[in-house]
């Protein structure tokens, strides 16, 4: 049996494809197109944010001053590190190294959990500061002083966007964690050896995309209000 034939009869090959290479390319194209739909999905929200930020500049600036820039920066680093481990795990799967594939996948999951924990801490802070729209909206004292100049009503809108955008992002993270878990289980069985690594690559691309969303959320929500 030649190598191509061996690959053609790989258990990971679906019936509609000629060979693993076609399947691999197809999967990759599919996930890229899916990511484009995600760009438009988040993009709608980004567009709304951009317009309101332009309309209610002071209020949105005031709102961003409530956020903890250190936690945001730390989370950015954590997420970037998780992207690194994810990329390494794809590399390991491509070379068929089971041990390091699993190891890097687990590392990615741990970093992902750290991100979510820090995010949880931040959400908790918002409740303590009473700046959660509808559920707990009663900013007082120093918090109020920070957002008052731009108008409290519009600052509430800033926080609606804060929660909607970071919340959707967190949901994507959680879905990603689930996918990673599934990969770990499959990788341990040695599924991703011998040229079949499509699922790892596909989940990897998704994970990097979620990272990119955060790369933009961080400056838009935390930084561009200025801290000088």
């Amino acid at each position, binding site marked *: 049996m030649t190598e191509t034939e061996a690959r053609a009869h790989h258990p990971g090959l679906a*019936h*509609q494809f000629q060979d693993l290479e*076609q399947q691999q390319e197809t999967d990759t194209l*599919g996930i890229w197109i899916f990511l484009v739909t995600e*760009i438009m999905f988040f993009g*709608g929200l980004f567009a709304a944010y951009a317009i309101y930020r332009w309309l209610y500049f002071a209020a949105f600036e005031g709102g961003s001053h409530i956020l903890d820039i250190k936690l945001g920066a730390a989370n950015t680093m954590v997420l970037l590190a998780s992207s690194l481990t994810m990329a390494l795990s794809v590399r390991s799967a491509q070379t068929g190294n089971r041990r390091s594939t699993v190891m890097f996948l687990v590392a990615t999951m741990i970093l992902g959990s750290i991100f979510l924990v820090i995010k949880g801490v931040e959400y908790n802070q918002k409740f303590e500061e009473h700046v959660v729209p509808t559920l707990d909206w009663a900013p007082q004292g120093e918090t109020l002083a920070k957002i008052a100049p731009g108008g409290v*009503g*519009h600052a*509430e809108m800033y926080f609606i966007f804060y929660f*909607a955008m970071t919340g959707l992002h967190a949901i994507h993270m959680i879905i990603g964690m689930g996918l990673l878990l599934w990969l770990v289980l499959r990788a341990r069985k040695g599924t991703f050896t011998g040229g079949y690594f499509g699922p790892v690559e596909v989940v990897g691309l998704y994970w990097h995309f979620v990272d990119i969303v955060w790369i933009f959320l961080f400056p838009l929500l935390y930084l561009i209000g200025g801290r000088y």
Partner: protein
Amino acid sequence: MSTATLEPRVRARKNYLNADYGWRSWLFTVDHKRIALLYLVSITFFFVIGGSFAVLMRIHLVEPQGALVQPETYNKLFTLHGIVMIFFFLIPSIPAVLGNFLVPLMVGARDLAFPRLNLLSWYIYVVGGLFTLYSAIAGGADTGWTFYTPYSSTYSNTQVTAVAIGVFVSGFSSILTGLNFIVTIHKMRAPGLTWFRMPLFLWSIYATSIIQVLGTPVLAIVLFALLLERVFHVGIFTPALGGDPLLFQHLFWFYSHPAVYIMILPAMGVVSEIIACFSRKRIFGYKIVAFSSVAIAVLGFLVWGHHMFVTGQSVYAGLIFSMLSFLVAIPSAIKVFNWTSTLYKGSISYEAPMLYALGFIGLFTMGGLTGLFLAALATDVHLNGTYFIVAHFHYIMVGGAVMGYLGGIHFWWPKISGRKYPNGWAQLAAAIIFIGFNLTFFPQFMLGYLGMPRRYAFYPAEFQVLNVMSSAGATVLGVGYLIPLVYLIWSMRYGPVAESNPWPATGLEWKTPSPPPTENFAETPVVTEEAYAYAPEEAAGD
């Protein structure tokens, strides 16, 4: 329609219909052809529901004070008619039924690129449909299919949440279908099937998928924001909290205008196939027709602001959107001229699919040209929000998309079911639908110009004559739609068995038996000629 009727018949040859039996074999199938039938049954169900709402509305409007229901009920009728017809019938109609069935056959593949994703998208569609049905049963929603804020987010006390969730969910079905088609057309084409040998149906499905993939997520996010606002009473689009209702309209129409092209582009693809087959001619200017599909898909994204000329949008934005709207008329006009020229020196026969296709050209021409009235700023000011709009988009969506859909169903029915339908009845139905359609909607152009606003549960008596005419036409149209439903179901059991290429037509889907086997082709076909090689000797290829 029940495919179970085929089960008792034992056929000599295995095909996708008799390959397996029982409801499990249907509900858990990953065969694109079976999924297409699942869609066919579900969209027919929604078409009947949406159609009955339309009939009730037309009966109600026979009298100026309203003949049938309370205004609140009337508002729910037109809302659900719009939502059901647009999101649960028209958008999935040609792509999810004919596209699902034909794309793998036309590219010469065993299945779509992602068969399980395909099944998932049907389930998502069903879940979305159930939310919508729940909303209808639990009291209905009365926002209009456009969900304009702040009425939908704050003031309406009907089941808006459920129906918005339904539309939100069904959007993902549309996205996944589009994604599947794009990837399939890119990666699964049979050897020799170059881009310029593809049937125009594939080109139009490809263009449609681009819109589905790029536009639908924006609808999802805007409905998500609407739901946030409605459920949590936060201000995103409500002016009381500084939100801008026009932002909702921008994001909504960013999807919902291109959505019209999701409906009409596949119909254009169907018409290209039918015209070529029944005049036995290559489509005149094949490449230009192919590129005009893509041009419509791209330009269609740039024109959404023409829905907002009178809404308080900036007049300069209006100017830009008006200009871009006129641009999208050009590729549409080019298509019409090319189809007409295809008939020149052809060998034309008038089988039912051809009648639908020719009807499509006529009605689409009317619909497209009346669109110019609405793209021009000065006339749009007068006509916006009136029955003129209603007439215009029905000419496009019903005169265009539904005629194309029915034409396609009639064209490929022998392939789908393996049976032939009675041609005489089919020709009669096509004629009745064409006449009934014009009787229903032509008077509405006049009503609109006279100034009757749309979505009126009752109206000044001066508009009665035209309304009665429209309602009379609607009964003819309704009858016209029932006839195919009857004879197509009848043909599944009693129709004569269809050969593999009954018309005969070119294209890979006709090179496999009717109905096709589960794996589509015994061996991967190799394409050596261009699409529509009807001519005796091979015409100069590309």
